[in-house]
Structures are given as C-alpha cells and as structure tokens.
C-alpha cells in the first residue's frame, strides 16, 4: 500500500545552551492516501518540528521520513505538496496575483494552465477582490488566505497545514473547515496540526496525538474517545492525567465568579 506520509522512528534534537532539547523522540506515523489526519498535542509537543522534517527543512538526528515513497530530503518529494506554515507571511511587496504566479513558476507550471489555476485558487480562498493589491495592505485573515492560496497553486495531492485557523475569526475558521472538507472530498490527503479540537473532530478521519515528541494516541476520533466524551476531554485525560479533566469545562461556581469579576468597575 502506498502512503502519503511515512515517518519512521524519527528523532530530532536541538542544541540548547549546554544541553539538548529532544523535540521528537522515536516518532513513527503513517498517513494513507486520501485521509484527513489531525495532528494534535500540547504546545512544544513537536508538531511543527515533525512537519519541518517532512518538508526537508530539518535533517533528523536519526530515523527518516518519506512523502509518497520518496525521501523527504529530496526536492522532488515536494512536487505534490502544498504547505501552509505556522506563522504565514510572504513577500509583502508583491500583489496577491504576483505571489501566486511566482509560486506556480516554481512548479514549472505552463502559462495558460497557471493563469486558470490562479483564478481558481483565488476563488477558492475567497480573496479575488484583493488579488491585485499589495499583500502589505492585507489584514491578518487575508494574509492567511493568500498564503493558503499559494499552498494550493500546484493542485497538491498532499496538503500540510500547520495551525491553519490560528488567529482567524469564527467565519474564517468555518471557511478553512469547509476548505479542508472539500479537499478531502476531492481525494486529497490533508495533514494538519491544530489546537482547535472541536474543528479537528469535525473534519478529520483520524487524529495523531503527540506529547513530548512521542506519539501517545492515534486512530479515528470515535475509537479514541469514550461514549459522550469530547476530543478535548480525551486530550486533557491523555496529556495531563485524569485530574486535569476537571479543568476542561468550568463549573457553574467558576462561571459565577467570572461574572462577578466582570461586573467590577
């Protein structure tokens, strides 16, 4: 069986002032073709590091990663990937359309094909009206959208999104959710990290949960969570132990306290 992503026993250590930080500790993970997999875990768990290895930004200390069967360190492995970075930013002196043209050229797309594709992705992320404006004048949400558009320019088979809804308003988040569902319906593989667990629950076939660089849970959401339990409760139970579960939803007394504080002058 061919996998979109194969990660085998990955270790990544960063030097940190006299000691080392073990960002990934023997991570192994597989993502099948056409799957939508949510990559979750607490801050500093190693999600971004794993994604960076997949894209060849970081050479692992040991282990290896493959994209569609090709070593992730080779540039050809990135032909079929679309990637949205954790803190998306881009050349602010370009217009949206110029950015997409440049991105398409890096995939050696033909002119006619490229022109059509640019219009299609601009429509897809709903930013057509600002396409000919400098990106420097965009709002944060628009910047996120144009970065998403450049990730999709090559009509990728594998879409890797690192916290795609970070900093977006509820409407923007819903759009991203719809987009992920649409990509999945088109048969693309979607691998995305997120802290919005309710979203992950809605759009993912499967989740992979990371803590301190290790895979601590993996499978379809319905298999992982107990009946009636939310993914958030499961997350807290797994990552921080059963006591922390109680923190998941505030008790009515806590709510009462908060209201009182809110009313103080």
């Amino acid at each position: 069986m061919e996998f979109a992503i194969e990660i085998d026993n990955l270790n990544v250590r960063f030097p940190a002032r006299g000691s080392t930080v073990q960002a990934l500790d023997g991570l192994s993970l597989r993502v099948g073709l056409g799957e939508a997999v949510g990559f979750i875990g607490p801050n500093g768990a190693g999600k971004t590091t794993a994604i960076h290895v997949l894209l060849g930004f970081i050479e692992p200390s040991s282990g290896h990663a493959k994209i569609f069967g090709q070593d992730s360190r080779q540039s050809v492995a990135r032909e079929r990937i679309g990637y949205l970075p954790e803190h998306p930013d881009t050349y602010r002196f370009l217009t949206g359309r110029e950015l997409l043209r440049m991105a398409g050229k890096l995939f050696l797309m033909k002119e006619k094909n490229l022109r059509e594709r640019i219009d299609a992705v601009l429509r897809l992320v709903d930013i057509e009206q600002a396409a000919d404006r400098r990106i420097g004048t965009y709002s944060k949400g628009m910047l996120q959208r144009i970065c998403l558009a450049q990730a999709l320019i090559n009509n990728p088979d594998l879409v890797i999104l690192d916290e795609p809804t970070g900093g977006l308003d509820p409407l923007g988040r819903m759009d991203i959710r719809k987009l992920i569902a649409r990509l999945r319906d088109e048969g693309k593989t979607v691998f995305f990290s997120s802290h919005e667990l309710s979203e992950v629950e809605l759009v993912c076939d499967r989740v992979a949960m990371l803590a301190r660089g290790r895979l601590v849970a993996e499978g379809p959401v319905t298999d992982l969570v107990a009946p009636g339990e939310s993914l958030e409760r499961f997350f807290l139970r797994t990552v921080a132990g059963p006591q922390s579960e109680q923190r998941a939803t505030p008790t009515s007394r806590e709510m009462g306290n908060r209201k009182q504080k809110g009313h103080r002058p």
Partner: protein
Amino acid sequence: MTKVLCITRIVWLDMLRRKDVYVLLILLGALLTALVSLNIFGLGGLVVYVKDVGLLATWGFGWILAVHIACRCLPQEEQRGTIYALLAKPVTRLQLVVGKWLGAWSVTCAATLAFYALLTAMVVFQGGTAALDGAVLIQGVLLHGAVLAILCALGLLFSTRMHQDAAATLTYVLSFAAFIILPRMPGLMARASGWHGTLVSIVYHLLPHFEIFDMRKRMVHDWGAVNGATFLTVLLYGAVYTALLLAIAWLAFRKKRFSRENLA
C-alpha cells in the same frame, strides 16, 4: 534555471518597490554630480579630474550597494519566515543561493551601469567624445562587474550564518582589507619568515585580489586597453573566485536549521 530566475525576480521586485533604494540611488547620483561639477579641489574643467573622482565614487557606490543588497537577501527570508513557503516548493537550497546571488549581483550591476552612464555623459560634456576610450571603458566596466560578483558572493556567504548587519560589517572589513592591504603585501612577505611568513602568504593568496580588476588609472590617463589574454584571465579568476564562494555558501546553507528567534 526557471526556478533560479524566479528567485532572482523576487530580489529585483523587492529592490524596485522599496523607497529607500531610490533615495539611496538619487543621493549617490547627486553626490557624484556634485563631486564632479563643484570643482572642490580647484581643478574643475580638467577631464582627468572628472574621470578620477567620478570613477572613485562609482566604485565606492557599487561597493556599498553590493554589500547592502547581498547581505540582506537570505536573512530577510528567515526573519519574515517566508523561507518556509519558498523551500516547501520543489526548490533546492543551491537554487536558492544561486538565485539570490544572481538577484543581488544583477541589481547592483544595473545601478552601477547607471552611474557609469552618468559619468560618461559628464566626461563627454566636458571633454567631447575624444576624452573617452571606448575599449578601455568596456573592459573597465566588465572587470568592475566581476568585482561586484565577488563582493555579492562574499556577502551572501557570510549572511548564510549571520545576522545581516554582522555579515555586512564583516564583508566591508574584509573587502576593504583586500583592497588596501593586499597590494602592499608582497613587500611584507619578503621580510617575513617562518610561520609568520607562511601566514602572510596564506592570507595573500586566499583574499580576493581586487586590485587586478581595477582599470581606473587606465581610464583616467588614457593608457589604452589591456591585451585580450590578460583581460580574459582576470575575468576567469573573478568567475572562479565567485563560484568558490558560492559553493562554500551552499555548503554552509545546505543543512541549516532555520529559526526566526536566532535572527530577530
């Protein structure tokens, strides 16, 4: 090649759309005109003087532009985080290094050519077309281009592992030393002996010999063009030196782990 040119284009658009670059160019142009026409040293009217001061200024400006542009290309990508989206495309790090160098070099060359055009116009204005030897001018401009190629590669090399300000400072110091000290070193080498002599000799052969590219005296005093073989050998030296620097830059950049914090 398309991918390399795509990256080069980013450098061009960045430069063309930044106001500070125009301000710098206009200031330098005004300075060049003022130096030449204001007759500061009381030698005005002498075409030789116009050429001498003008060429010195043009070399100085080219130097500043090359270092300024080359040292910011890569660190900017890292600080902004734009490097992630770029390297997530099927682009190799070698293509990135070469594309950035080509961008920095071509932008610098274009600006320097504009200064040469300005200078030529002033010389012709003062002394007529006879005051200018076309062959020497062409040789001089091409060799100046080779110097700028080396400077850009040097700046880019340092910027692979340093903050852009540190890289620029180091490039200025090293190239200034190469320009000023190297021509005087053979005398030093004759006197030095032992490990000291070896050290001086290593430094002498390692640093770029900018002085052999310098045709300014020939241009000023109309000494005529150098012979073709010498000219080509010097150009070849420039090309090989640039290629070596770019190869080292690629080695330094090949496995680099990026971090915005390191550079912010």
